[in-house]
């Protein structure tokens, strides 16, 4: 089964090899392990944000200073970064984003569905190159490609990690956490 792959560990290794020095994030269950790996890495500055939009400013400042910055967020957070993405496009800042999906495959919370369903279209409308991934085994290669595209071509890229990978939570499971 492809689910046997430890994708957060692989993704952390790829971020490290690509010399990502800053990682901005809003806490998210799907990114929990990757966030922990980044926080434990002395070569990376993991920066918790109050809203995803702050991550765009962080990444701009990092690149102005010569450092690479990736953002980790949930698809609902995409709604918080739309205007700021205009700066990324106008100035051609490189910006890799790893986005875990909600409101998509078997979602239990109806309030997550509108933003989740709109996420690819919204990102593409703002000039972000979007790469959906539906299997854990495909995530490392997609992240590697997203980093290469971002830094070789000075664009924003987004790897959308499906709920098929993250798992589907029910109200009951959520309450028991």
């Amino acid at each position, binding site marked *: 089964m492809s689910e046997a792959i430890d994708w957060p560990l692989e993704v952390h290794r790829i971020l490290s090899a690509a010399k990502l020095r800053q990682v901005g994030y809003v806490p998210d269950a799907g990114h929990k392990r990757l966030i922990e790996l980044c926080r434990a890495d002395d070569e990376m500055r993991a920066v918790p944000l109050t809203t995803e939009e702050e991550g765009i400013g962080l990444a701009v400042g990092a690149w102005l200073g010569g450092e690479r910055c990736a953002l980790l967020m949930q698809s609902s957070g995409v709604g918080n970064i739309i205007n700021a993405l205009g*700066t990324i496009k106008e100035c051609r800042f490189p910006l890799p984003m790893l986005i875990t999906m909600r409101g998509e495959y078997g979602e239990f919370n109806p309030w997550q569905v509108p933003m989740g369903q709109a996420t690819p279209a919204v990102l593409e409308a703002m000039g972000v190159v979007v790469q959906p991934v539906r299997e854990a085994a495909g995530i490392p290669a997609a992240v590697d490609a997203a980093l290469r595209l971002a830094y070789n071509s000075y664009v924003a890229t987004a790897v959308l990690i499906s709920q098929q990978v993250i798992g589907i939570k029910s109200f009951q499971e959520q309450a028991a956490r």
Partner: protein
Amino acid sequence: MSANLKRRDVVARLLAERGDLLVVAGLGSTAWDCTAAGDHPLTFPLWGAMGQAAMMGLGLALAHPSRRVLVVTGDGEMLMGMGSLATIGVQRPANLSVVVIDNERYGETGMQATHTASGVDLAAVARACGFAHASTLTRESEIAALRAAVHAQPGPNFAAVKVVADKVPIVLPPRDGGLLKARFRRALLGDAADTQ
């Protein structure tokens, strides 16, 4: 609060003999103020991204701990990114200063009152968020010390400088975002920035 400081005088004094200071200028009036003080490759003036100036300062300060970083922005811009004060307070970069030129107005949209006109205290917010130093300045005699703090005081530092809400001539920096980015990186990182 009846202010008598003039925004152009304050910014010109903050940026005088700036040395290797790195500057992010918030969109609108503070970008014009910084340009009036002298367009500079190591100033990144914003034409958009309202609310993100302080976070850009944070990313820059973390990338270059050995350089002093100054964010000059307006009260309306800072209010839109108030959460970033909490984020900066958690990271506590010693080399970062955020100076809000506070005229208690949205200067580009018709001088409507911002929340600071009703008493919202940005320096108190910054202090509560963990900034090492945070104060509200109203007097001309305090500006020299603020400039010295920007260059040398271990931060993060925050100051709200109350200024007169008058209209001043617009002095525009270059508009091309790609140019502003590239010239900043080249000035900071050298030619290697072009092939990084």
